[in-house]
């Protein structure tokens, strides 16, 4: 049973990514959650723990206490995600395998990216990101084909390709991280420090968030819309690569040499990604509400629910991200808040979604108004994300340093 069609009984059940309904014969919601774990779950957790243990042992001399702490914290967090969202386990395993393969092939020499076939054409960072870009475009086409031709095969293909795109993009970022250290130990840094790198991150986050909802709501029909915004991001990324050579790894300027960057930026992009998903689902809602594609899209209340869920998670993480940004600003610039354009626009984005949530949850507003609002919200968010960098001048004294 799929929730996507307006069946008389649109109950909600988690389903397998392949679409098979995991409806237990006798519902067992009361079984203890630990007992619901299978062997793969435990294997997954074990692999994570071993991986972290190995990294801790091997790289301990070059890591400080924060590195250690964050590394260790990754184990329970990733375990929890994988246990709650099963396909994530395979995703993470694939990324780990590809990234490790790439690192092995490099043998510590950057030049091998040009000499080794697999590196040059598959799993060096740039190539992997190019694969991600291509896969995103093809997946978008497949989802649309699936939607318009009512083809389950098209949607399945779209979904599979989106997973692959996320795998390639994540691999690309991890390998890029490694490559930056090959450039020189003092140059090495996590690849979330400039617009190019965060666009890859945005693509990944948005795709993964979408894939989560796709599984959670057991419908692939929203993919066609969500992939539009991801494709747009990839389009920008390619333009940025080919005309601006933005992909070149640059060392970190002093202001960015901070631990806060590593937590602030990814948190922010969970927010941006979720807002993007909500806006695209909102677009689908608006069309369906007017009868356009209505029979092909999921039921309105499903779209509405996804929109709310996405905004809720986006808001929660954006709150954390903004606070982390303020903590960082306090350390780097001496004040946690100085009304710099980027900060101010983050506040505007935040206020916007706070108002949205109030309207829905306390005033009980529903329907097209909220959907329009989510779409406009993405415009505001986009301005805060890229517009501010392009059109407004910051007051940071670090611009000058």
């Amino acid at each position, binding site marked *: 049973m799929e929730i996507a069609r307006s069946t008389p009984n649109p109950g909600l059940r988690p389903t397998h990514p392949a679409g098979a309904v995991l409806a237990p014969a*006798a519902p067992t919601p009361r079984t203890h959650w630990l007992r619901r774990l299978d062997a793969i779950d435990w294997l997954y957790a074990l692999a994570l723990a071993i991986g972290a243990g190995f990294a801790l042992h091997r790289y301990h001399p070059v890591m400080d206490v924060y590195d250690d702490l964050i590394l260790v914290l990754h184990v329970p967090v990733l375990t929890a995600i994988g246990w709650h969202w099963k396909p994530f386990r395979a995703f993470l395993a694939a990324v780990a395998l590809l990234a490790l393969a790439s690192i092995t092939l490099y043998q510590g020499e950057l030049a091998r990216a040009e000499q080794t076939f697999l590196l*040059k054409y598959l799993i060096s960072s740039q190539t992997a990101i190019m694969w991600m870009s291509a896969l995103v475009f093809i997946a978008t086409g497949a989802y649309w084909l699936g939607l318009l031709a009512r083809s389950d095969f098209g949607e399945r293909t779209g979904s599979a390709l989106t997973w692959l795109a996320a795998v390639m993009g994540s691999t690309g970022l991890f390998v890029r991280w490694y490559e930056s250290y090959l450039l020189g130990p003092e140059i090495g840094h996590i*690849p979330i420090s400039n617009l190019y790198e965060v666009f890859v991150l945005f693509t990944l986050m948005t795709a993964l968030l979408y894939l989560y909802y796709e599984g959670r709501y057991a419908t692939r029909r929203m993919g066609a819309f969500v992939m539009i915004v991801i494709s747009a991001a990839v389009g920008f990324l390619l333009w940025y690569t080919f005309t601006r050579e933005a992909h070149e790894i640059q060392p970190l300027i002093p202001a960015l040499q901070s631990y806060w960057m590593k937590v602030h930026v990814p948190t922010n992009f969970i927010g941006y990604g979720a807002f993007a998903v909500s806006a695209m689902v909102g677009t689908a809602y608006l069309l369906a509400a007017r009868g356009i594609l209505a029979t092909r899209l999921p039921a309105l209340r499903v779209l509405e629910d996804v929109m709310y869920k996405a905004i809720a998670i986006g808001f929660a993480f954006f709150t*954390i991200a903004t606070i982390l940004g303020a903590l960082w600003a306090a350390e780097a610039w001496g*004040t946690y808040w100085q009304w710099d354009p980027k900060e101010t626009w983050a506040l505007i984005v935040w206020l916007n979604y706070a108002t949205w949530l109030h309207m829905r949850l306390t005033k009980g507003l529903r329907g097209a108004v909220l959907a329009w609002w989510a779409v406009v919200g993405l415009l505001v968010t986009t301005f805060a994300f890229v517009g501010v960098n392009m059109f407004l001048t910051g007051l940071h004294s670090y611009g000058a*340093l």
Partner: protein
Amino acid sequence: MHRGTARALFELFSSMRFAIALLTILSIASVVGTVVRQNEPFNAYLSQFGPFWFPVFEKLGLYSVYNAGWFLVILAFLVLSTTLCIVRQTAPMLREMRSFRERARAASLNSFAHRAELMPAMAAGEAVARSQAYLRQAGFACRIADNGEGTLLAARQGTSGRIGYFFAHGAIVLICIGGLLDGNLPLRLQVWLGDKHTTAGNQLIADIPESARLGLDNPSFRGDVFIPEGRATSFAVLGLGDGILLQELPFTIALDKFHIDHYENGMPKRFASDIRVTDRHSGETTPHTIEVNKPLTLDGITLYQSSFEDGGSRLAIKARSLLPGRPGVLREIAGQVGESAEFADDRAGFRYALEFTDFKAFNVEDMGGGEAPADALRGMEKLQQHLGSGAKAAGQRDLRNLGPSFTVKLRDAAGQAREFHNYMLPIEQDGRWFLYTGLRDTQADAFRYMRIPLDEGGRVDTWFAIRDRLLDPAQRNALLARFAARSVPPAGGQDATREALVQSARQTLGLFAEQGYDALGGFIEQSVPAAGRSQAAEVLIRILQGLAAEAWMMARETAGEPALELNPARATYVNDSIAAISDSLFYGAPAWLQLDSFTERHATVLQATRSPGMPLVYLGALLLVLGVFAMLYIRERRLFVLVRPGGALVAMSSNRRALDVDEAFRNHVEGLAAALGAPVPASLTPEGA
């Protein structure tokens, strides 16, 4: 105030509608501050908005929106509204959290969207016990009451999530109050109430009046501490409006050294200040290093690496004359950045003030021209270029350190200043070497650069010698004669031809000496028909080249050096020289300032802050995160099981209407049905879904 009015105001201010209006206004007001650049010098606004709008915008507080009275009023209303909202919600929320609603009747349960009728396969007492066991296992707190219609199990889950409301909204109030304490409101209150006045920024510390000084008891401030290397200070400068206030610090900070480290590609890697802090009272001195992202907190004051400037580097400068007929060095000047020196010459009749404004020991520039050669590639080839590691860019970025440079303003008696930016070391371009000197008339312009070519010995002397001979009227006849003699040797007769050549060369040189290439161009445009212009230009340039080459040889002769063969490289040198001479006619200074040597001295700019609101804000931030997650993710659910003769009525309510409520309800009904041995009802769809 009338009780009715007070009540109405309370209703208004604590209402959701009012809060949402405030949030909207706050957002729009914030946008204004991102569009108009904030806290710039007032004359920048004056030139941006013009004399009419400048004062209007100033009155509106647009140059410092976030400190403007009206903006603070909006914030204050937000605090008020949120506080009243909390006040208003507290009683109902607490009641909600505590109550089980065990007095609910079947009639009201029947109005729930989620409800189902079960047929237990057992006696009522047993059904109650089993339901209770199920509810407990499912994580519900449960009360059992007899409501007259049967036995009601009233269960609830997640009501503690309502604490989130208090956390999140209390956090808003905390953050706003903390923010106000750390903003410049306390400072402005002191100015209004404490008889303090801002003063102009450009004076010596000793001259700053008592009324512009703030004592150690000032609870909240943020200011800049400027310290040149080898100096010490115990003051921070706070900017307020267009003036400053001086904040006393409880310690003295001495800067030993300021470090700037670079990566190999020239990007900055580290900025750090080695300081020594001496406590005023104990006299104890401790060394510290402050870096970007590594601040230092002492006595409740936090010091941050904010930026850096030149701290008075010493420059040894030669003023090389550009006055025709006065070759050589006019003066040697010892300058210091931040100071000014007199530069006057009675014979030439000029008098300037030289203001040394900046010095940089490193100038890393991208000399790659910006264009990526990859543009020439197409399709697959271009894609190929972008595969592989992220370490390389297809376009050649050519970052080069151009060495030391300094800027200086040449101010005349009328107060007009022209700014110059000179490099100390030559810069290579297409295999030739030049010394660059930039000039501009106003701060708003970009520098225009003149490039002086270096001779084969790597010096500029030859260029100055050629220039002097070409431009000095006193030497003109000799130059023309030599030029004519070389072009048309006297031995061959042809006196008339030679005379004609001298005539046109004199005219060419005369024009060139006035306005350079511009004058020649203008002359050709005026006197030659369009068809013949390019040929005429070629002739004039040929003559100019001949004259310049001759001037060069004459200069060598005077210096006792042998004549040179004119090969292609030397011909290029001659052309570069002529171009630079032409540019130099618009240089607007009697001399070119050559930097001979320097002693660099940095100054660090630290920011000193005392932020009493910070703990409040951080606490607020923590509560905000906890509150938001609690509100959004702790799901409050109330499940009622009314066991009565003829069946059990199951109903569920939630404070959030979302699809997962349907799912939860289905699960619970199925769970209860299993516990009670009852069949699962066919449809559990809530009404109106």
